């Protein structure tokens, strides 16, 4: 704990905020793309320092074991996505899908989104976290509609309405948590601080906590994309610009799930409150099975990967619902690896869509022949996301299924069924996309492949050899979660 830590925490928040203002003002698109990437890189560096230097917990901000991993992950993926976004957006400008004015808007919104997500992860105040998540949601709503086609507007409107309803329910849950806390802790900021809440949770009124968690799970669960509250997710992924799909899948869903986890730990600390496990398990299982069936018969490539995100969020929720050190460890690792994998996949998909000029899967064929680097990247990505060894996601899914089997064999069977269904759908699609005779335009893809392969490298490394320090870290956090 040190004051140097406070400087870096401030940096993690101030750099995106300041660059947003700067990016809104600058007109030249090449400069803004580079500035975007630079700002994201600096934020990542500041966040990584937080591993070593932590500030003391304040009323508004806290850096503890749970969120330090996510903040580093979030800034890292933000950085790689900004690199991808640079080349992607240049192409969009050329084809005229975006005008320069909207480009400035896009870059400013991107940094505000980063700011919002960092603030949500770092906040120690449940109200402040709510504000940050709402800010992040609103920026993504604006960006999903940025192409202004009818389908994009419909997707953005649906996302806005469902997101707003979720946010409203989450705020009601937050107020109920405060109500439960303030009769024990006293009025004021202390009754809204995470560290105080977790410590004093056993003294809270269980009935209030139960109702609060219900609202919070429904509200933030909408943002995670759990079935049946998922209706906005496939459209938002399909119609928004690809960097936004990457950030949505990779980061924003994680932040929302992180919020649910925080509240779950408060709830679990109270012996009188109901066990949140079964509810989360059922929502997770429902999401996995529904999404894996929906993966078949999709014709839009980004929509398909949107459903895949729903499936993985379901797996993670299932894992945290099961609880226990092994399942929690697997869930945390899965969150991290899924971020990396899904964003990398979206990078590939973005370049593919630009090269082929379409997102319609029947029109995209034989990628490994026409665009070998992209094609094999996609193969690697789909193999990773489907859970093939030696990629990291195989290990986490294996862990989840085995721990579940040891405790509730029927649930494990259901989960396994869902996973296999998804696996089959993805491989079927991959076959069509990557192999066979090339189809459609063969324009070269102006792409930066570094982010893609960097992510895959990390996922592969995690699958093959996870550094012991990191393993220990995850286990420690898993034990905090019960």
């Amino acid at each position, binding site marked *: 704990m040190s004051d140097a830590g406070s400087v870096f925490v401030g940096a993690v928040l101030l750099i995106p905020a300041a660059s947003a203002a700067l990016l809104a003002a600058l007109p030249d698109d090449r400069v803004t793309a580079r500035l975007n990437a630079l700002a994201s890189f600096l934020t990542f560096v500041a966040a990584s320092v937080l591993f070593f230097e932590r500030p003391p917990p304040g009323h*508004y901000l806290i850096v503890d074991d749970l969120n330090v991993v996510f903040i580093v992950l979030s800034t890292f993926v933000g950085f790689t996505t900004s690199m991808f976004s640079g080349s992607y957006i240049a192409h969009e400008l050329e084809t005229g899908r975006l005008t320069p004015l909207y480009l400035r808007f896009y870059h400013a919104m991107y940094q505000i989104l980063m700011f919002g997500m960092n603030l949500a992860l770092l906040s120690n*105040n449940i*109200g*402040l976290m*709510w*504000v940050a998540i*709402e*800010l992040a949601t*609103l920026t993504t*709503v*604006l960006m999903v*509609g940025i192409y*202004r086609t*009818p*389908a994009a*507007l*419909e*997707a*953005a*409107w*649906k996302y*806005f*309405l469902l997101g*707003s*309803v979720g*946010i*409203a*329910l989450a*705020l*009601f849950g*937050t*107020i*109920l948590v*405060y*109500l439960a806390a*303030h*009769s024990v802790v006293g*009025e*004021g*900021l202390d*009754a*809204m601080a995470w560290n105080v809440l977790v410590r004093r949770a056993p003294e809270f*009124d269980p*009935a*209030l906590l139960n*109702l609060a968690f219900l609202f919070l799970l429904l509200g933030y669960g909408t943002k995670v994309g759990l079935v049946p509250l998922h209706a906005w997710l*496939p*459209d938002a992924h*399909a*119609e928004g610009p690809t960097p936004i799909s990457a950030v949505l899948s990779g980061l924003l869903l994680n932040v929302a799930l992180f919020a649910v986890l925080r509240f779950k730990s408060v709830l679990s600390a109270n012996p009188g409150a109901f066990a949140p496990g079964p509810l989360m398990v059922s929502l997770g299982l429902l999401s996995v099975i529904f999404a894996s069936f929906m993966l078949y*018969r*999709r*014709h*839009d490539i980004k*929509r398909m990967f949107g459903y895949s995100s729903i499936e993985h969020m379901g797996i993670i929720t299932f894992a945290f619902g099961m609880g226990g050190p092994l399942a929690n460890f697997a869930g945390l690792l899965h969150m991290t690896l899924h971020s990396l994998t899904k964003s990398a996949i979206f990078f590939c998909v973005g370049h593919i869509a630009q090269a082929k000029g379409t997102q319609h899967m029947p029109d995209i064929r034989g990628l490994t022949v026409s665009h070998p680097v992209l094609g094999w990247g996609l193969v690697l990505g789909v193999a990773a996301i489907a859970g093939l060894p030696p990629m990291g996601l195989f290990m986490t899914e294996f862990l989840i299924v085995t721990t579940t089997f040891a405790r509730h064999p029927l649930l494990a069977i259901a989960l396994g069924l869902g996973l296999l269904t998804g696996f089959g759908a993805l491989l079927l699609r991959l076959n069509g996309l990557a192999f066979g005779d090339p189809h459609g335009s063969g324009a070269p893809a102006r792409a930066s492949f570094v982010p893609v392969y960097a992510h895959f490298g990390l996922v592969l490394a995690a699958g093959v050899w996870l550094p012991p320090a990191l393993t220990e870290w995850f286990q420690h956090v898993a034990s905090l979660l019960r």
Partner: protein
Amino acid sequence: MDRLALDVAHLFAGGLVLVSFMLLYQDRMTGLVNNFALHALVVSLAVAWQAHIQHAPHLYITAAIALGVKAIVIPLALHRIIVQLGIHRTIETVVGIGQTMLAGIGLVALSIIVMLPITAKAGTLAQQDLAFALSVLLLGLLMMISRRNAVSQVIGFMSIENGLILAATGAKGMPLVVEISVAFSILIALIVIGVFLFRIRERFDTVDIHALHEYRGEQP
């Protein structure tokens, strides 16, 4: 707690539920916007009264924000949007008004049954405010579900926010952070709403979301 103070708080909170029902009943666009202005006015009065009896002067700011932004600025802006877009006509509903009202009564009864026993230890004032706030929230959700018009869905959402303001002030001593955040989100929502209404109109010459249904995005 002083009897009169409690009764007046009950008056305002119950009045808010009544105005939410009036919102459900409205089938004309301009009437809807005026009703919403009344809704915001009642909520600001309720918050101001809470500020008085809780001796929490910072809540007066919240009341002023609710009054200024939601009771005056937003209805005026919506009136202008309605005139400019030329959409002042009746609003279609998914089911009849009678059934909607009965569903609304059911939701109010449900929220009272759920909230009263749970908040029994928290004091009478918080109990009432939370039960009524949840009713307003559920009625706003009902309004969003049962209307086919984008403007009325937005108004339903804003009435949900009003209910949440009532809940937040009922929970005594919730710090200023939440009040600023609620006001902040109102402002951003207004910007987004304005942008979207113009974009939707631009694209469809209508704000009837039935026209959007072709692009529902559920095709593969």
